[in-house]
């Protein structure tokens, strides 16, 4: 129903704006400053509210929803602690450029600045971790501000936008005619769409001359919906392709042209290829320190092309030779056109010598691990998860070793299937994010891979999963340690395991059961596949699978902080050699 022109209160305007934006779910938690809005939510049934158990989870769930669907996630929190609790989730979305609108309640305008009950300067606190934020002091600005918030969140380089709304602005007794603008024009914000053709031409010329090219792709390909264009470019050029943690799945990981993730825990072949490449084509990737290692050693022989929608990403960490600012999909379409005009046809796989070299590196088998161990190796657990789910899975992750093992051993063939906090590295992200994914795709298989340390950071969300009957499968790689912390302490602190042992763990089976879920514990490799099959066969149940894994396993390969890309530690099971 068109509500334009109808008299609405501020609270009703917020809800109607969400309806007009096509919002399916709002993840939130009520409190004093947002009660008018909650009352307006109660009186309608178009926008569904999902009650989380902690505001951090509201932001993560909205974030997970956005990552899986490409639509804008929405969360609603109250003033003061509601807003501060959400900050971790907002910062998580910011670091990974996830479109999100977070509506926060604020104390009434007359008492702002008086240290009122549950008052905090939300706009001030969130300023460094949002794409933009607003404090709406007049109900007449509310509709336009919300439209702007969605527009800013979704366009250009996406990101979270906070809209802070004082309680009096949502007063149910003050009604004004509702007008929701369809289009927004902002003189101060005009994101670039198309890339500069001259620059794209220069890039194609470099690519045509390349002897040792590498396509280095990141989360921007996923966010920019450019997986199809990227796949075509890779197929046409025959170039090897490596991806960052955030870009996994944009190009099919089971394809032989994919040479693995790069960076700190990337494959030997990907990192060596980066080290030796003469033309690097960076697409929607931001040269993060976890990728580059020591900047001085980064791609020492390469001319670098960088495609990114955000001009400030270009030459921020690494100076590039051919910068191209624009939407990845648009730039790649233009690039494909030029390549087809200029490239020799039917030459088969070009750069054959380069591929021979890469295959040689690949034979090192850098992801090798002991497959005959009587303990469950975390790598084996991830491989088993892949087999049991047949690769058809939305997998969210927490942060640590399990995240890296999942990235290394679960090959995603589609974008938006691998959902993890890459930039901020937020433990506690996985379970609430999975809630957002499962709500977006009720029929899909959704799992959260986690560790016993991470999962406890948002464990309360098992109640939310029960309330909304979300059949998520938690795959807990339980090694009794903060695994990644333990690994660094083993390598760099002479095995002084300072506070990395997670003592006094709960019985996760009983814990899951107490929330009304199914809990299972697996201790032997031989039982794992059957247990996972059983878990995933329970299509309407939340199952918590506590997998007891080898506590001492480390993530390899590894580039230590401050080392170059070519200075990797390989798994000791391969041999003790360190390739340098």
């Amino acid at each position: 129903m068109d509500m334009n022109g109808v008299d609405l209160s501020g609270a009703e305007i917020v809800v109607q704006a969400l309806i007009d934006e096509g919002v399916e779910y709002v993840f939130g938690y009520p409190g004093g400053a947002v009660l008018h809005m909650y009352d307006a939510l109660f009186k309608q049934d178009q926008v569904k509210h999902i009650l989380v158990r902690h505001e951090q989870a509201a932001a993560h769930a909205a974030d997970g929803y956005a990552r899986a669907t490409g639509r804008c996630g929405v969360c609603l929190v109250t003033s003061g602690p509601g807003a501060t609790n959400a900050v971790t989730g907002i910062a998580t979305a910011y670091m990974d450029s996830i479109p999100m609108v977070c509506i926060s309640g604020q104390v009434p305008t007359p008492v702002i600045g008086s240290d009122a009950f549950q008052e905090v300067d939300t706009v001030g606190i969130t300023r460094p971790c949002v794409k933009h934020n607003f404090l709406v002091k007049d109900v007449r600005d509310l509709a336009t501000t919300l439209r702007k918030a969605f527009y800013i969140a979704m366009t250009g380089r996406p990101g979270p936008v906070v809209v802070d709304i004082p309680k009096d602005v949502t007063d149910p007794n003050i009604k004004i005619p509702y007008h929701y603008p369809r289009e927004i024009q902002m003189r101060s914000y005009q994101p670039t769409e198309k890339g500069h053709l001259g620059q794209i031409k220069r890039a194609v010329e470099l690519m045509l001359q390349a002897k040792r090219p590498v396509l280095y792709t990141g989360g921007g390909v996923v966010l920019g919906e450019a997986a199809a264009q990227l796949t075509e470019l890779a197929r046409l050029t025959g170039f090897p392709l490596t991806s960052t943690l955030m870009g996994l799945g944009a190009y099919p990981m089971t394809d032989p042209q994919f040479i693995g993730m790069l960076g700190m825990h990337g494959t030997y072949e990907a990192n060596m290829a980066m080290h030796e490449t003469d033309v690097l084509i960076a697409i929607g990737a931001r040269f993060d320190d976890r990728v580059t290692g020591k900047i001085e050693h980064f791609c020492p022989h390469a001319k670098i092309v960088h495609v990114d929608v955000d001009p400030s990403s270009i030459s921020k960490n690494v100076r590039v030779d051919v910068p191209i600012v624009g939407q990845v999909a648009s730039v790649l379409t233009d690039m494909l056109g030029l390549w087809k005009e200029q490239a020799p046809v039917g030459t088969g796989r070009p750069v054959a010598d380069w591929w021979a070299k890469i295959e040689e590196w690949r034979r090192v088998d850098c992801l090798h691990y002991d497959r005959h161990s009587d303990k469950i190796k975390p790598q084996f657990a991830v491989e088993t998860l892949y087999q049991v789910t047949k690769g058809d899975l939305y997998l969210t992750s927490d942060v640590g070793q399990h995240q890296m093992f999942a990235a290394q051993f679960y090959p995603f063939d589609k974008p938006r299937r691998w959902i993890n906090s890459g930039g901020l590295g937020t433990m506690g992200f996985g379970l609430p994010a999975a809630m957002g994914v499962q709500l977006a795709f009720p029929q899909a298989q959704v799992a959260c891979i986690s560790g016993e340390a991470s999962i406890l950071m948002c464990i309360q969300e098992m109640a939310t999963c029960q309330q909304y009957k979300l059949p998520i499968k938690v795959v807990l790689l339980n090694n009794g340690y903060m695994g990644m912390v333990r690994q660094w302490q083993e390598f760099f602190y002479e095995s002084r395991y300072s506070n990395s042992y997670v003592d006094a763990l709960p019985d996760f089976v009983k814990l899951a059961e107490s929330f009304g879920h199914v809990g299972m514990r697996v201790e032997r490799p031989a039982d794992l596949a059957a247990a996972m099959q059983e878990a995933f066969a329970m299509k309407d149940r939340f199952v918590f699978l506590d997998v007891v894994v080898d506590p001492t396993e480390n993530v390899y390969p590894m580039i230590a902080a401050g080392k170059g890309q070519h200075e990797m530690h390989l798994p000791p099971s391969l041999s003790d050699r360190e390739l340098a």
Partner: protein
Amino acid sequence: MRHIIAVLLENEAGALSRVAGLFSARGYNIESLTVAPTDDPTLSRMTLVTNGNEEIVEQIKKQLNKLIDTVKVFDLTEGPHIEREMMMIKVRAAGENREELKRLTDIFRAKIIDVTDTSYVVELTGASKKLDAFIDAVPAGLIVEVVRSGPTGIARGDKGLTL
């Protein structure tokens, strides 16, 4: 190198703190920052002076442009421009110093805008270096208080930094 960057901003609450926050969050140098509304009351013009190598200054400009409230960013130091800063300086002006300070004021084409038996307030406008020079020229121990506006600037020629 020293850069004078002019920024046109939406005249919104919080716009200034977004710029200030950007500099502190990213660890950029900021020497001075002035801001006031323009003839168009919806726009503020900010002038900021920063130091850094070309790569850092380039990144500063990109980050300023990235702020949603930023309408335009212009590096005045890239072309011919005029820089002006205003200073009010209170000096002890008693006995023989009184005449000496008057002379100094005339030499710098400054103005005395407040007088007591023992003090002057001198107003001086010019490039920041000229203001520095005046401070250096005041005999030791006579300065009571210095207030500087921070530099503002405008490009030479007929083109304007407008919408």
